[in-house]
């Protein structure tokens, strides 16, 4: 047990439904780890458990040797965990710049009264986080949209804003929930370049959920395949797509047909 993130015998029950069944896997520092499986396999549930949105029925989540099971979701950010959502969830009424500035919330260290009285610390930290936000927007190539409402952007660009916003929190572990969903092949290729780049630049470990196997193949060092909350495969993505159990889970079992 020396992984960066350890999911240790996690079980999650929703009433009578077992969404995750005794799942264990380890993510090493600096790798891109894929979580794949058919709809309803429990992938997003695992994300919600890691970020503290759900408390597992059994089992532990360990990040860098620290047990973070059942942590409060907003405190997970302080532990260095950031996430994106499956169905992009940007702040609709706010500009792209403001959306990213929200991510820097914990980095702007001025109090409520310092903000109201506009004391020097307010200006100092607002300047710092704005500069960082512009840097992030440059990396993703979305600076021209800074004043646009986040929802006015194309789907691909909204994804970028969401990832940029997650990066703004300064994570060590980035959880991406279907980052390539709804993107055309060109956008997907662009996205995988960006993910590789930010992984290197920000020294990240990435855990991602994805359906697009081509994307997974190009991105992930290792994958875990889930089916009905159980791990049916762990290893290289290239091996996963030829594995009988994985094929059966995705396409159905034809052996009895």
């Amino acid at each position, binding site marked *: 047990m020396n992984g960066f993130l350890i999911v240790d015998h996690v079980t999650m029950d929703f009433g009578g439904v077992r969404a995750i069944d005794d799942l264990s896997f380890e993510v090493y520092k600096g790798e891109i780890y894929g979580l794949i499986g058919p709809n309803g396999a429990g992938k997003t549930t695992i994300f919600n458990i890691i*970020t503290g*949105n759900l408390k597992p029925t059994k089992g532990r989540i360990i990040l860098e040797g620290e047990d973070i099971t059942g942590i409060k*979701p*907003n*405190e997970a*950010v*302080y532990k260095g965990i*950031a*996430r994106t*959502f499956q169905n992009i*969830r*940007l*702040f*609709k*009424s*706010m500009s792209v710049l*403001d959306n990213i*500035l*929200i*991510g*820097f*919330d*914990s980095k*702007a260290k*001025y109090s*409520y009264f310092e*903000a*109201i*009285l*506009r004391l020097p610390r*307010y200006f100092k930290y*607002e300047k710092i*986080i704005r500069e960082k936000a512009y840097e992030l927007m440059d990396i993703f190539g979305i600076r021209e949209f800074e*004043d646009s409402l986040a929802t006015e952007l194309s789907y691909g660009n909204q994804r970028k804003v969401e990832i940029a*916003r*997650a990066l*703004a*929190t300064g994570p060590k572990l980035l959880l991406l929930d279907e980052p390539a969903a709804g993107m055309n092949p060109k956008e997907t290729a662009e996205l995988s370049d960006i993910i590789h780049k930010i992984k290197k630049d920000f020294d990240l470990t990435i855990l991602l959920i994805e359906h697009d196997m081509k994307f997974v193949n190009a991105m992930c060092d290792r994958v875990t395949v889930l089916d009905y909350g159980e791990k049916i495969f762990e290893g290289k993505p290239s091996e996963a797509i030829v594995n009988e159990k994985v094929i059966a889970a995705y396409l159905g079992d034809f052996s009895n047909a």
Partner: protein
Amino acid sequence: MSKLIRNLILIAATIAFIVWAQNNLEPYTLRIVNNIGIFLILALSYNLINGVTGQFSLEPNGFVAIGAYFTALMLIPPEVKLDMFALTDPAPIVMKMHASFLPAILTGGIAAAFVALLLSFPVFRVRGDYLAIVTLGFGFIIRIFAINNPEYTNGALGLNDIPQIANLYWIGGIALITFITMIHIIYSKYGRAMKSVRDDEDAATAMGINTFKIKTLAFMTSAFFEGVGGGLLASYLSTITPDQFSFLLTFQLLIIIVLGGLGSMTGTVVSTILVMGGMEWLRFLDDDITIFGYDFGAHPGLRMVVFSILLIVMMLFAREGLFGNKELPDILKKFKKLKKSKV
């Protein structure tokens, strides 16, 4: 820097207007301006919790009442209190309460903020419209408390002879401070956090924002300024009764902030002036109406009918209020950009 100069000019102009109005306006007009000032304080702060933070709340009448009663009890001299309390003797603590004007209104504000803090523990732990229900009930409780505890509030008779210290300098000045405070909050990380809670609470949490803390902060800030506004109202009117703080007050403020745009402080300023000024301006409708020499007679209440129709028409054409959830400078900025891109 041009922004700073523009802001300074605006502030100077507002102060110049306050000084001019206090010294030159006839009493009736001055009264309307004062009324607008007090409602500005209340509507701006109400918009922070309801519009910016997006927590549907019906609290202003309760907090205004708290601020008004605290301020009134602190301003009225003890010997006057003894005379005034007709139903029972005033409670010892009431006799001890005494302060000069500024501490008195601040105490009213702090008392309201403290009650807001107590309310937020049960209310903000759950999501949904509980806040509206709880604050609605809270407003009724405060009123009933005021009626049924004559040793503190002189019951339904209310408090009279409150020293009339609040004038337009106080009211206008505090309205200006309230506006600047709200704008400063909105354009800071706290304002952004409040808006993020309104837009998507889960995503806000995922950004590390403690949504409970942010909602409580917004609620307490609203309550503070509503309490201060209540204190000004008490001192300005020099008499208060429990019935003044009925749900109608909240309702009137709700109309103002919805009309101005939920989440827009500049919109609230415009709509407060429109609604409060408009109600006065439409007063001629309650008088005898003569059209082309035919006397239609007087129809008291016609003013409210016309006013309601005007509101409905406005809401039909500007569903999100005058300025939506944006501030005027941001709208102008976007408009300029749009114009540029078309050229």
